[in-house]
């Protein structure tokens, strides 16, 4: 078990290097250097200032040197300073928003699990029934639905026409004046629509996966044995089938992480939630390259960690992986 863990962690190092390499290459795809917006394109910058900026960013050095310098700074968590007017360190800007994005995504993941797993199990237990067909239809919708459209529709319904829920931001304007419980309620109301949107596509994927996994498990011999032994169907399904069916689903956890982090761009931008996704979108629109690079690296690292976590939990849960 320990050996497996160590091997997985050792694999992470070349991955991290690869992530930084790809991110670096992406930013330097541009025909002009990233700093030209502030220098040659900026009529107010003198030739002196341009030269100084070029030296500061090390842009006069060859690419490999630039990459190595950047890598060294990354190791100290120095992602450079944002190009935006406030010029704050990129790491600070990202740090204050990671919590919100991760929190929202975790919440939506919980909702997905709570709804999709029972849905998948029930559909598998009654194959080809009305319930199963209905679930399949729902899954098809879920895969085809553009999340931003769903967001707009929900905003129209609940925000504009019914006026039940707020449609932007994380809190209301007079949040600071609220009591604790009012704060909880306010936060909850603001978070409802974004989380629903975030969870929707995931629901489709997970229900389907769960159903497929359950169907495969139910076909196995040991289930027939359990039934032949006279065990009540409920025990057969929930104690024996479900546990085995959940195993491959755990690997899906790892694969969902990039989708969740990436998807947060859309719903955070639409609902004006101050998270990593909205920050990234703003950085892209403003061509704030240090911020874009920083978010790219961090997003990929978070995904890597999520995958690691999923692999480790899979190894924990399935003893065949550890010994095999």
């Amino acid at each position, binding site marked *: 078990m320990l050996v497996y863990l160590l091997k997985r962690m050792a694999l992470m190092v*070349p*991955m991290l290097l*690869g*992530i930084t390499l*790809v*991110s670096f290459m*992406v*930013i330097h*795809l*541009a025909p002009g250097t990233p700093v030209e917006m502030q220098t040659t394109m900026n009529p107010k910058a003198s030739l002196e200032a341009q030269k100084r900026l070029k030296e500061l960013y090390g842009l006069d050095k060859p690419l490999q040197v630039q990459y190595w310098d950047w890598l060294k700074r990354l190791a100290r968590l120095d992602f450079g300073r944002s190009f935006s007017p406030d010029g704050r360190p990129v790491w600070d800007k990202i740090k204050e928003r990671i919590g919100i994005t991760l929190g929202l995504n975790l919440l939506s993941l919980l909702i997905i699990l709570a709804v999709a797993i029972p849905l998948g199990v029930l559909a598998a237990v009654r*194959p080809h029934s009305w319930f199963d067909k209905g679930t399949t239809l729902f899954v*098809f*919708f879920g*895969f*085809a*639905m*553009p*999340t*931003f*459209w769903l967001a*707009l*529709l929900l*905003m*129209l319904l609940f925000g*504009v026409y019914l006026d039940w829920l707020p449609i932007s931001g994380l809190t209301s304007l007079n949040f600071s004046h609220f009591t604790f419980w009012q704060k909880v309620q306010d936060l909850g109301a603001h978070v409802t629509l974004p989380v629903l949107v975030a969870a929707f596509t995931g629901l489709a994927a997970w229900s389907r996966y769960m159903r497929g996994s359950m*169907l495969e498990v139910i*076909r196995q011999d040991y289930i027939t044995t359990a039934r032949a032994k006279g065990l009540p169907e409920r025990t057969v399904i929930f104690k024996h089938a479900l546990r085995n069916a959940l195993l491959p689903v755990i690997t899906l956890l790892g*694969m969902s992480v*990039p*989708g969740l*982090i*990436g*998807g947060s*761009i*859309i719903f955070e*931008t*639409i609902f004006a939630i101050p998270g990593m996704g909205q920050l*990234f*979108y703003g*950085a*892209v*629109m403003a*061509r704030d*390259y240090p911020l*874009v*690079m920083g*978010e*790219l690296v961090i*997003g*990929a690292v978070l*995904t*890597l960690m999520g*995958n690691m976590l999923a692999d480790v939990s899979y190894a924990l849960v399935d003893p065949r992986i550890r010994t095999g």
Partner: protein
Amino acid sequence: MKKREFWARLRRNRMAMTGLTLVAGLFVISIFAPFLAPYDPNSIDLKQVLVPPSADHLLGTDTLGRDVLSRIIYGSRVSLKVGFVAVGLATLIGLVVGSLAGYYGSWVDQLFMRLVDLMLCFPTLFLILAVIAVLGPSIWNIMVVIGLTSWMGVARLVRAEFLSLRERDFVAAARALGATDARLILRHLLPNALAPVMVSATLGVAGAILTESALSFLGLGVQPPTPSWGNILTAGKDNIEIAWWLSFFPGLAILVTVMSYNLLGEGIREAIDPRLSE
């Protein structure tokens, strides 16, 4: 023989046939757009700004008085173009990577699979947006970028097929007859590995259309005035309180299109190997 079985099974699957009909219908609509659209999608009429659906304008007008129905009809061209080129590129890359990895095995396989794992670490939309930030939004750029970020699934599929096909007798026979690696890969292995690739390509078009519309919605895809379902929705969001039709209809178009490709793709998957469905 296998082909006839395939078509027979496909025809029996009602959902797949629905998908096929819709896909064909969309093709027709996009090709005959100039004849089907009631108005010029780019003709501005400032006297008819933000008119709700009416007899004159079946789906209403937008902020510049342009007819929404016509813009949606022409928008199908963008979606299909992007879908096909992006998927074509992704499939090409995936075929090359997957066949080489699956055929040669050992370090080639390891190298390519690590590359796949690496690419999969990046949240796709982050990567795409970063590249667009650097290269600028244009229909050509987004086609290429979507292609460059969605080849990984195809590569894995092709590799898996090659790994299993490699051991078959016909490969040994061809080798014994002196076939070169290239001939084996191109003439013998690839054609047999294509079946799952067809599924993945069909589903890939659906995904590419979703991604393109998301990018256009964010303002980083197809730029106005060229109509794209995504960029009509941008206007929908900005005018959500006064023009519900701008939000509703383009999204519906995306939904129907993507669903039809999904249905078709799933239908092909079931027709190829009926054992896969229980």
